[in-house]
């Protein structure tokens, strides 16, 4: 109990520290390129957290770019057709993504984990195909369409306001996910993930909660997608590509699957590595390095980077006890 309290205090301290750094970062960096990197990093924290929420309920998706893209397209189209501010349409577009998420969830709820991965992967391809064929009149086909900026570039310091808007939405999303994970819904999610039969015996309806997980995850992913596109100002069907489906997975596995901090840590660390390697002019090498790191983390650190402090602590304790007494076996 005592150590738990200490850990909680630590977590609070780190959380406040990270937020404080995020708030003052633009003034320290004072560099528009890096500010853009930071904004995209925040958006990917939202995206990775959305994927993580789905994984928390025991479902893995290989096609989350579908929801990312649907949120982005829907928000763009609503903003273009109605003239409403992107600040509002982000949430409307995400609702469309959530609706589609429920539809695909309905086909998936009965499937085993890797059948599900297949269906979601295929789903992203189907959505992309529809976007460039039937929906071409509204989506502009492969050429894409311009998307309204979050803020007009005429406003003084619009990059800063945009950054803080994204930061606020990121924090709100994470608090929302934290709230869900702590609530009865989150308990139900982990019950289904650990043992579906027992969950059912305890009165948890797996189908309902799986659909809910799909809807929530798709909604948050949709917000991330809409934010990114309104930040960049242009959208093409490339958004449904395999690359964008795999990035959130990479971030989450790197940081720690099924933990609140995992996606955040993973996204921050990998963004630093990724943009740090840019200096060495490695076009393909960067991917190779990320791939090697990913495999090393999966094999040697199955709970991700967030587990590293605990692992080190255990290793340290084990080393000290090695000569004194046999170390108690944990887990």
């Amino acid at each position, binding site marked *: 109990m005592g150590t738990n309290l200490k850990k909680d205090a630590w977590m609070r301290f780190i959380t406040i520290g990270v937020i404080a750094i995020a708030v003052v970062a633009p003034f320290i960096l004072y560099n528009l390129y890096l500010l853009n990197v930071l904004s995209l990093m925040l958006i990917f924290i939202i995206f990775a957290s959305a994927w993580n929420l789905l*994984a928390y309920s025991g479902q*893995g998706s*290989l096609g989350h770019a579908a929801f990312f893209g649907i949120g982005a397209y829907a928000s763009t189209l609503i903003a273009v057709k109605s003239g409403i501010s992107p600040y509002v349409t982000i949430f409307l577009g995400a609702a469309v993504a959530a609706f589609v998420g429920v539809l695909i969830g309905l*086909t998936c709820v*009965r*499937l*085993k*984990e*890797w*059948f599900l*991965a*297949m*269906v979601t*992967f*295929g*789903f992203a*391809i*189907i959505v*992309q*195909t*529809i976007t*460039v*064929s039937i929906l071409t009149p509204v989506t502009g086909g492969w050429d894409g369409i311009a998307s309204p900026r979050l803020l007009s570039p005429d406003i003084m310091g619009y990059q800063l306001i945009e950054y803080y808007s994204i930061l606020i939405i990121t924090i709100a999303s994470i608090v929302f996910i934290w709230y869900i994970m702590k609530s009865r819904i989150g308990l139900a999610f982990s019950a289904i993930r650990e043992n579906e039969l027992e969950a059912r015996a305890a009165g948890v309806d797996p189908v309902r909660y799986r659909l809910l997980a799909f809807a929530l995850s798709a909604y948050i992913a949709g917000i991330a997608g809409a934010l990114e596109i309104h930040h960049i100002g242009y959208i093409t069907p490339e958004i449904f590509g*395999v690359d964008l489906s*795999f990035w959130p*997975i*990479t971030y989450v*596995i790197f940081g720690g699957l099924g933990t609140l901090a995992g996606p955040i840590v993973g996204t921050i660390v990998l963004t630093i590595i990724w943009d740090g390697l840019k200096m060495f002019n490695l*076009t*393909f*090498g*960067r*991917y*190779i390095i*990320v*791939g*090697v790191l*990913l*495999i090393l983390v*999966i*094999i040697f650190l*199955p709970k991700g980077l967030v587990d590293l402090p605990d692992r080190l602590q255990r290793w340290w304790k084990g080393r000290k006890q090695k000569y004194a007494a046999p170390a108690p076996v944990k887990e």
Partner: protein
Amino acid sequence: MDIGILLQILFWGIYAGCIYILLATGLNLIFGVMKIVNFAHGEFLMIGAYITATIFYFTGINPYVIILFSMLALIAIGAVVERLCFRPILGTGKLNEIFISIGLMYIIQNGAAVIWGDEWQSVKSPYEGITVPLGPLTIPLDYIIIMVVTAAILCGLYLFLRETKTGREMRATSQNRKGAMLVGINVERIDVLSFGIGCALAAAAGTLWVVSGQVFNPYMGSIPAVKAFAIIILGGLGSIPGAIIGGLLYGIAENGAAYFLGGVWKDAISFIILIIVLVIRPTGLFGESGE
């Protein structure tokens, strides 16, 4: 409706199906023995394609002969990948295998891009332009050779699994791993071997891909691999006849869709079929329990 066009689509479908059959059979072998899901299987197809193209470029040997070199090389590469990446996580859950595959995809695709560049390439077959008239159709000679080669490889695999001691050990391991261990089969050796043979089949598929004159680049493998998975889900896990029927079906459906709906639907149609089948039967067409 012109019967000639229908036949043409059917024939193209069978030819495209050959590549899927080889990929799906390899996956099936790996899944059957090790029970792992390797989403990076298409990357071995891609490496096989590049090895063939490179040897062909430098020596000019008939590409249908290079298929053997390519398969041998991929047995070695597959064994290394199995040993380094998949064995440490064996039995830790299906999702972990998928995540490892994603890491492998990053590494292999971009490794190939470093070595061979990321532009689309193609190779001219020595028999290019030679066609065989067959009823209302004129069929490129290459397509016929490809079908024959596929059939020969499948027969070879069948005989290997049926008649040799190692083949019997593989089948035993896939039926019951623990039982196989009990009767003294070295299952880890069987794992390496079946992964290697699976990769070799992918290399054969890659070689046929190249020989048929289709373009290739380092990122070409992922979609055929996922389709191969769709095929083994449809055809039943571990069932080689299922993989053959599924592969042919997919080849024909795709070429039909490309003709009637337009080329963009070529990939989407396979996944639409998969989703429809899984909605009706969550365990696959011939699957028992799915796992």
